[in-house]
């Protein structure tokens, strides 16, 4: 009962936010001073401009424009890339799976390293190894991901030549969007390893330190001493008793971190030349394709809002049990 009421509340919030986001991106182009068509196709002919004006419905009143825009979005009409004439929706289906795979891999790699490191430093809090690991983590937080990307591509790519520093081969997700792209998993892995790892490194430090902090608090709790007094081994205590309450923290944090991940992915794609949404955005900015850019922003914003909504929801379902258990 309580749950459905909160869900309903959240859904309403979700819709409001989505409306605002779409309105914001919608207004971006239309708020440019002067004639938007001049900005979008500065070197076009008058006929082209008239066609564009018709396309965008710039002659109609603003609310009607917004309505058309919105319905168009829902139908998948994301506008056209004006230099090539290609519909943006095609470009999106080409590049979105690439970015998604990159982010998923990065998240996994980050957690894979951060969880044992977090547990270890919490268990050995105060010792030299703890201080050493944490100082490294602290330094990593100060290292911008583009710097790391450039360093790695220089050393691993150019000097050691272990991995390629640019290019792409389709992975398992691409064919879901476009069945013509069959996976070449080995090459896919080779191309994605360095970028995913670079993206992950920044998150490793964050997750590790947050997990450590949370676990140190958990390890002070009485039930840990109680488990020890039962004769349970340290390993088991760490992984089965202490990690459990802290893992909720970790999952929530990983979920909320998607925003940073997206931002990081954009830069990483540009540096490594991975043909994902980030690279497309970069190219759109470069060629001043504002309609295309606007569509990308909308897609990312909508996906981001949905992920946050899902994380919030998941958290509220999982948490009351823990909350009620820990408090009272």
């Amino acid at each position, binding site marked *: 009962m309580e749950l459905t009421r909160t869900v309903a509340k959240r859904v309403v919030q979700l819709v409001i936010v989505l409306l605002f986001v779409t309105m914001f991106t919608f207004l971006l182009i239309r708020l440019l001073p002067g004639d938007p068509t001049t900005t979008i196709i500065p070197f076009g002919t008058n006929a082209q401009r008239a066609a564009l004006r018709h396309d965008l419905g710039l002659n109609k009143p603003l609310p009607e424009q917004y309505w058309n825009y919105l319905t168009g979005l829902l139908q998948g009409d994301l506008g056209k890339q004006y230099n090539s004439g290609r519909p943006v929706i095609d470009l999106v289906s080409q590049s979105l799976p690439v970015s998604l795979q990159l982010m998923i891999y990065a998240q996994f790699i980050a957690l894979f390293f951060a969880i044992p490191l977090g547990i270890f430093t919490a268990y050995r809090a105060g010792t030299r190894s703890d201080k050493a690991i944490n100082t490294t983590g602290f330094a990593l937080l100060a290292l911008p991901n583009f710097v790391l990307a450039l360093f790695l591509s220089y050393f691993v790519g150019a000097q050691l030549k272990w991995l390629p520093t640019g290019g792409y081969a389709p992975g398992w997700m691409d064919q879901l969007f476009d069945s013509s792209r069959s996976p070449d998993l080995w090459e896919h892995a080779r191309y994605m390893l360095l970028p995913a790892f670079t993206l992950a490194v920044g998150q490793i430090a964050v997750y590790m330190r947050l997990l450590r902090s949370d676990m140190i608090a958990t390890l002070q709790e*009485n*039930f840990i001493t*109680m488990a020890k007094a039962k004769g349970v081994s340290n390993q088991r205590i760490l992984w089965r008793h202490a990690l459990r309450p802290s893992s909720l923290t970790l999952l929530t944090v990983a979920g909320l971190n998607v925003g940073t991940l997206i931002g990081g992915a954009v830069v990483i794609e540009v540096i490594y030349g991975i043909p994902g949404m980030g690279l497309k955005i970069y190219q759109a900015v470069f060629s001043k394709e504002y309609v295309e850019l606007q569509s990308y922003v909308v897609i990312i914003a909508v996906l981001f809002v949905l992920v946050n909504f899902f994380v919030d929801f998941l958290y509220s379902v999982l948490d009351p049990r823990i909350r*009620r*258990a820990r408090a009272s």
Partner: protein
Amino acid sequence: MSPGEDRFGDAPYDGPLLEVTDIKTYFETDRGLVRSVDGVSLTLERGKTIGIVGESGSGKTVLSRSIMGLLPKRGVVREGSVKFEGQEFIGIKPKDMRAFWGAQMSMIFQDPMTSLNPVMKVGNQITESIRQHLDVSKSFANELAENLLESVRIPEPRKRLKEYPHQLSGGMRQRVCIAVALACGPKLLFADEPTTALDVTVQAQVLDLMAAQQRERFMAMVLVTHDLGVVAGRADDIAVMYAGRIVEKAPTTTLFANMKMPYTEALLSSIPRLDDQSHTRLATIPGRPPDLVHPPKGCKFAPRCPYVQDKCREEEPLLTDAGGGHLYRCWFPVGTPEGAAALEKNRAAGAAPAAALATGPTTGGQP
């Protein structure tokens, strides 16, 4: 398996179950070395109960954990000797201690809510201990767990196995903790303020339960509490702790009938009695426990003692044996002519502790 039969196959040991000699436990902190336990000795036989009584800060909790060896490795200094069935504990690695924890000795903690893992089912918390020490199948362990819950008088035990701690009441949770502690049939049970966090009505039930289990299993018990009432009918011996030392130790009846330490007397008199007149002022012990980093010279209780004389502030009283297992440390004990004279002198001078002590020492009988 009958009580007394050694289930682990060793030749039965002849001496006391637990023999603690001059144990010291110090903590390294920024302020200095905190002397939480500063030389405590006691022995305990199988099937017997010793009550350890003291205020917070007296070191009683640290003592029980130190004997068991549950303290952190870093920043802790632990000296002395702790022999369990002849086996020395101090100096052995925590890894080796794990064979004893749960199987030979266990502990029940003060707050049952926080002692149980909130995200783990009750049944699993019991079977975890069983499967750690006994080589049995999962289903057998579950059966054992169910029996245990039944023996601690939890209704519908099979259902409870699958529940989480927060679904149980405070009293039930403590019973679950007792079940966990008793799961592998330990020879020694430490109960650290087991009823402090519970309602008064539930306290007696839990204590009775523990006593019953103890009788059934011929288990030794160390009952740590600040409440003399808790140990009154349930301990064979009582040790009173103050500032990290035992200041008086005696069999229970002797202690109540013939206490020697002014501190013990003050503790006893601070318990309100049912047959007191209404509006009787509650007696308190003025002052605060001493600083354990820089303890004062002489007797540690001197600043708060109603009987204090100059000698007390200069020299630490020696441990005196009054016979019959009664040990105490005091220059001017209760119930002696020197003690009475000292008290009168202080009262005449208007000293606060002497005035705060309820008029006339309480003698005899159970509180």
